[in-house]
């Protein structure tokens, strides 16, 4: 089955025919674009099988994964047969909805269960899992030629993203330092930038904002000119997830930090500086004037759904949230555009704080070497390119995929401004939080303080002072400050 098609795919991989000719040929044989993608990747996988690495070493072994229900997992599953063929291994997986996913991960890891060999995680979560001894340092695999295939190309991963997944376990330790442990492998990531509704912007005669003052004024203008639409979507629920997207990206752009690290490694609150107060005031006023009426309940889902349904004019949130909202049965599908955003007028470039969906290995796994075979394939360049060009495996973490003409033109065609936005903001994209074990507690309190400021329950300067005092107290109690 598919013999002719496979030959055509191999010719494409060998560089004998162009991508366009290959796809046209496939279409003439009645093969859909997505099946063509799998076949092309099958040919790429065969090429991988010939790179001298013993891919069949763990043939017959079964690894089990714990996955979040996400387009990244869908892309991996669509390509899984190629991994099975390459290695002779089998892969089982459990998929859980995101709402309960991390409860399941925490329960599995903390009970020392060996059921799951590898799992999806966010980099922030590894700040808890790593020091607790629940996950492995993957440096020992990446650097071992006998365990990692020669085409893996670790250096191909975007530097800021790669380093953001590595931490030495010292509270306040710089991410990606020389002594850092690679707690997880980046898989796909999100930058926080602007996604705006170009139909509405044209209708109201708005221009794309380039700093926080323009953002606030454009949002206010959109609200005034567009009937029943609010100006700017940002998250507002009482959760750490309110701080990490647009808010921290803007905050970092002003050169501000969440915590100070002293020479002796002690941590203290850093959010009550004058620059921070000023930025907080602008942010709070922007939400009060032009944010969602029910902003304090807004999570990823509400921010995205409102943009897709035409209830908001723009979001300052994850780029891939805008990407998803620009398709499917969303009312505004096809109307969304993307722009890089540097909140500080004096900043040279954006500084998006990032969320990284990553892969980690459970320390309790009983077949770590075999599991690494899966991890290196799933995070390897072939699968990254397949997922990015044929599925919704965006944003890829590999430079080679971003350099791929097919991928760039696909994005350019359907997602105006996306490629340019990524190119401009990628150099400054990294995690801007200080790595430390109280991350979730402190950022949740920060979000709660923002809520009080927006509700006018506390003035910004007083709220920041209270927050800083509370953060310092908690750090001291934990022996970190």
């Amino acid at each position, binding site marked *: 089955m598919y013999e002719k098609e496979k030959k055509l795919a191999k010719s494409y991989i060998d560089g004998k025919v162009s991508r366009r000719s290959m796809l046209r040929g496939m279409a003439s044989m009645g093969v859909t674009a997505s099946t063509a993608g799998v076949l092309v990747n099958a040919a790429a996988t065969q090429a991988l099988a010939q790179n001298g690495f013993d891919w069949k070493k763990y043939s017959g072994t079964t690894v089990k994964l714990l996955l979040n229900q996400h387009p990244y997992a*869908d892309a991996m599953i669509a390509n899984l047969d190629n991994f099975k063929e390459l290695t002779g291994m089998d892969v089982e997986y459990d998929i859980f909805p995101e709402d309960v996913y991390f409860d399941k991960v925490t329960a599995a890891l903390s009970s020392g269960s060996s059921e799951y060999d590898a799992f999806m995680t966010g980099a922030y979560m590894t700040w808890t899992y790593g020091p607790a001894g629940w996950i492995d340092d993957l440096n020992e695999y990446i650097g071992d030629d006998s365990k990692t295939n020669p085409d893996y190309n670790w250096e191909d991963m975007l530097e800021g993203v790669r380093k953001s997944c590595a931490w030495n376990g010292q509270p306040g330790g710089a991410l990606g330092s020389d002594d850092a442990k690679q707690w997880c492998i980046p898989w796909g990531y999100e930058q926080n930038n602007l996604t705006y509704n170009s139909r509405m912007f044209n209708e109201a005669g708005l221009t794309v904002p380039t700093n926080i003052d323009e953002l606030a004024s454009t949002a206010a203008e959109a609200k005034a000119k567009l009937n029943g639409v609010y100006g700017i979507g940002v998250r507002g629920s009482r959760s750490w997830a309110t701080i990490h997207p647009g808010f921290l990206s803007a905050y970092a752009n002003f050169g501000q930090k969440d915590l100070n690290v002293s020479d002796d490694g002690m941590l203290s609150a850093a959010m009550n500086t004058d620059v921070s107060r000023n930025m907080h005031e602008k942010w709070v006023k922007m939400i009060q004037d032009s944010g969602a009426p029910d902003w304090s309940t807004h999570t990823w889902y509400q921010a995205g759904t409102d943009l897709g*349904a035409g209830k908001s004019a723009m979001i300052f949130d994850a780029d891939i949230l805008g990407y998803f909202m620009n398709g499917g049965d969303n009312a505004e599908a096809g109307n969304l555009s993307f722009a890089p955003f540097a909140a500080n007028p004096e900043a040279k470039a954006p500084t998006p704080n990032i969320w990284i969906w990553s892969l980690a290995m459970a320390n309790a796994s009983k077949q770590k070497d075999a599991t690494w075979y899966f991890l290196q394939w799933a995070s390897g360049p072939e699968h990254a390119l397949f997922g990015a060009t044929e599925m919704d495996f965006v944003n890829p973490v590999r430079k080679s995929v971003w350099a791929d003409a097919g991928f760039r033109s696909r994005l350019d065609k359907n997602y105006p401004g996306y490629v340019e936005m990524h190119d401009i903001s990628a150099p400054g994209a990294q995690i801007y939080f200080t790595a430390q074990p109280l991350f979730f507690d402190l950022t949740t309190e920060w979000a709660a303080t923002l809520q009080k400021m927006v509700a006018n329950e506390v003035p910004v300067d007083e709220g920041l002072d209270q927050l800083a005092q509370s953060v310092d107290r908690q750090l001291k109690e934990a022996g970190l400050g």
Partner: protein
Amino acid sequence: MQKNSNLENVLRGVAITAIILFFMFPILWIFLMSFQTNETILRVPPSPFFEPTLTNYRSLISGKLEGSTATLEIAFMSNLYNSLFLSVTSVTVGLILGVPAAYAFARLKFRGSEDIAFTLLSFRFAPPLLVLLPLTIYFQQIGLADTYGGLIWVYQLIVLPLILWIVRGYFEDIPADIEYAYRIAGHSFWATFRKIALPLAGPGIAAAGLLAFIFAWNNFIFALVLASADKQPVTVGALAFITASGINYGQIAAGIMLSIAPTFALALYAQRYLVEGLSLGAVKG
């Protein structure tokens, strides 16, 4: 018998209509949502008029959900089956164990009976998360992790205390003299339990069983922690419609309609027993 005036009848009618509207409106709205696409659900302003579609039900039943960017595999029907299987078997096991135990606690006063009854009740006090991690470790050691048998056992933490304590109250409300009279007629203890006590406490047992079923059906955390994805109940499965690429409101609404159907049907069928059972003993002099 006192006759109501017309005004009273009208006022009563208005009050009943208002109460029905208040309680039924969310369910009615969800019912309407289940026949709409995301686009019509999210339009501004919302409207009760739309072109109905069966897409949501079709995708739930076929297991293929057309997402905003790709087709998503969902296991909603198997989640529904898991819920049904876990709830029915747990309540059955709970009734088999709990009803005789409740009778014993009600009729036979033995040393430590109150202590044992309170110990069983205390299962309801413990926050599930507190017991789940140790349970996970034990279950892995004895091979019960990720098995239906293990889950049904753990579900007894929910259903057994409920059945035991509710049914015990009903047994206590039945005058013991009726049973003594039957015993004097030469019948055994077991026959008395079966022929006299059980039928008299029937509505109470039905009410306890129904409540236990609803509690078991609504449980979320036990299967999430103790079992893999193929054994998850509908309470976990329903979250699959909230995805990174958007919330599928139509499928959520259809999922709600399908998942409340069994408890709704059971409640309608057993309504008489439920009311009778719950009010039994409430008017004793």
